[in-house]
């Protein structure tokens, strides 16, 4: 108790020093909390948009189809499959299963007037599509597809690019399953403006029933079977369970994370960057703590000598310095948590207009223009104890250096 009291009073005795070093720790905590909040928010939004508009929790297709798609080649229409009854039963028996829909995704050129633009066309079943994807909820003009419709649903950015409105004519040129050029034509039936910038620009939806014949694909064949689950947490484990249950190399089962490797990489690099920044600031803080303990020991060398003369063991003197270093860390971390919470509250409620600086559709990241922060209470505890731990660890060697001073020299020190 006395050692703690001495440590606490010494912290306030050297207010300026305590304040400067604690401020570095505060800066580290605030930076970490805001970067972490931004990372969580970006990943939540990115994965959420991928699941809602691109690849839901689980997708099943031929391995070759995915391989060619990832290689950047045009989406191959000769890599289709017909889901059998057993596959449907296995999917429906998955824990957290909600809905499924089959699609035929292929590459094409969207043509209107004299202009054309490369897009991904998804021939979908309007009866089940909206059970899995949320595009329908974001119709801003016209209406969504009905079975047998010859129209298309295009994104707001694509419509803007071509100056199209619902009812205008379009043509999509593509290579069919035999590799021959073919087209489908009709009217723009609806325009969607989703939170996924890439979907707004590059994805076109067409009724599967209408597209089957020009695509040269037989009834019942699809490129992907898309499955929606109750939540994201179940997706990876249930994809694994389905993979094991099917036990075939012919079909590949992927979770949304497998399908969105670019976001997973982004997440990894984002965290590496966050921890790197944190490590740099904490390193500066740790050096500050070391110098503070050394300076404190030099200034109080007679006090150390007296404590030794009074019979305090080296371990007890070490504790005084550890308490002081821990106190600086705790003050810095606590203030950082308080300020970090305040700034994060603003971030969560008001958001950050990232769109003003970056056009995410250009770099293919599924983010909206305004990014809203996220709360992760465990981060507050983790960063508090990390800063406290680093402060204590940084002070151990200088504290022992101080405690091992020869009492005779220390007492006579002038």
């Amino acid at each position, binding site marked *: 108790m006395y050692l703690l009291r001495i440590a606490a009073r010494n912290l306030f005795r050297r207010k300026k020093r305590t304040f400067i070093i604690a401020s570095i720790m505060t800066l580290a905590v605030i930076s970490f909390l805001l970067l972490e909040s931004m990372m969580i928010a970006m990943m939540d939004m990115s994965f959420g948009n991928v699941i809602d508009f691109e690849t839901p929790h689980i997708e099943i297709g031929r391995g070759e189809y995915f391989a060619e798609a990832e290689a950047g080649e045009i989406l191959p229409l000769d890599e289709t499959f017909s889901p059998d009854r057993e596959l449907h039963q296995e999917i429906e028996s998955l824990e957290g299963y909600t809905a499924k829909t089959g699609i035929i995704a292929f590459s094409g050129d969207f043509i209107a007037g004299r202009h054309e633009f490369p897009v991904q066309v998804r021939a979908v079943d309007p009866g089940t599509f909206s059970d899995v994807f949320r595009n329908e909820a974001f119709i801003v003009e016209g209406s969504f597809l009905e079975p047998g419709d010859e129209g298309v649903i295009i994104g707001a950015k694509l419509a803007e690019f071509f100056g199209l409105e619902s009812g205008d004519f379009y043509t999509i040129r593509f290579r069919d399953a035999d590799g021959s050029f073919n087209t489908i034509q009709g009217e723009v039936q609806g325009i969607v403006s989703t939170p996924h910038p890439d979907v707004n620009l590059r994805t076109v939806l067409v009724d599967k029933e209408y597209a089957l014949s020009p695509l040269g694909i037989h009834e019942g064949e699809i490129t992907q079977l898309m499955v929606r689950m109750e939540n994201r947490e179940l997706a990876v484990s249930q994809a694994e369970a389905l993979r094991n249950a099917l036990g075939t190399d012919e079909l590949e089962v992927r979770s949304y994370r497998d399908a969105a490797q670019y976001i997973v990489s982004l997440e990894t690099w984002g965290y590496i960057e966050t921890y790197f920044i944190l490590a740099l600031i904490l390193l500066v803080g740790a050096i500050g703590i070391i110098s503070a303990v050394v300076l404190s020991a030099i200034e109080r060398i007679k006090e150390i000598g007296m404590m030794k003369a*009074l*019979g305090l*063991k080296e371990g007890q003197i070490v504790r005084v310095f550890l308490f002081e270093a821990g106190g600086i860390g705790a003050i810095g971390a606590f203030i950082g948590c308080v300020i970090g919470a305040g700034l994060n509250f603003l971030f969560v409620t008001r958001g950050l207009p990232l769109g003003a600086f970056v056009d995410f559709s250009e770099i293919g990241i599924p983010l909206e223009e305004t990014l809203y922060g996220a709360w992760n209470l465990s981060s507050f505890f983790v960063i508090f104890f990390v800063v406290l731990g680093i402060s204590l660890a940084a002070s151990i060697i200088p504290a022992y250096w101080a405690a091992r001073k020869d009492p*005779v020299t220390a007492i006579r020190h002038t």
Partner: protein
Amino acid sequence: MSLLTMEGVKKTYGKGQVEVHALRGVDLHIKQGEFTTIFGPSGSGKTTLLNLIGALDTPSEGNILFQGNHIGRMSRNEQALHRREHIGFIFQSYNLIPVLTAYENVEFSLKFSGKKLNHDLKKRVVHILEHVGLGEMMHRRPNELSGGQNQRVAVARALVKEPDLVLADEPTANLDTDTSKEVLEIMVRMNSELNTTFIFSTHDPMVMEYAKRLLEIRDGNISHDEMRE
């Protein structure tokens, strides 16, 4: 039985050509309750002798026995325990802990003497501070007290744990004559009331006047040992 026995104690600092022989073979017996003053010129070895007696330093040769225990053979932690249980120190520059009040400085010493702080011991802290004339100022910090008052706190701190031996290194060097007298009288009173053994090192003739035993040290040897009434 002697409280303290020193047999052929030598202390040498440095090595080779820069060797300094601070003590050259001291034999000494101190009994419980003695009020002894060590005097001698600067560099004669007074402080070295006090450091060895107080287990702050270890001898290069010879034995130091405190109540029959070899303090020169103790580990650093054992020496620390020995100091906190048996020795009280008073230094020329007080060496109080600046962030603690007078009361806390005294209680701190008691707290780390291995005794459990109970109501009686807290009363003892107050009592001893009153005894040294600081009853009204016990909640002031060292920077709010005069030099003499600080030295009184140091005396109270050394005595509160009722040690077997109090070592005082030039305790009056920074004090004026009147304050020196007051502090010395407190120590004389403690010596007679509690039978606490005191060993002083000093240049101050006034301190010598109070001593019951005078030890003169020259060139690392005790050159004169005189018992007084």
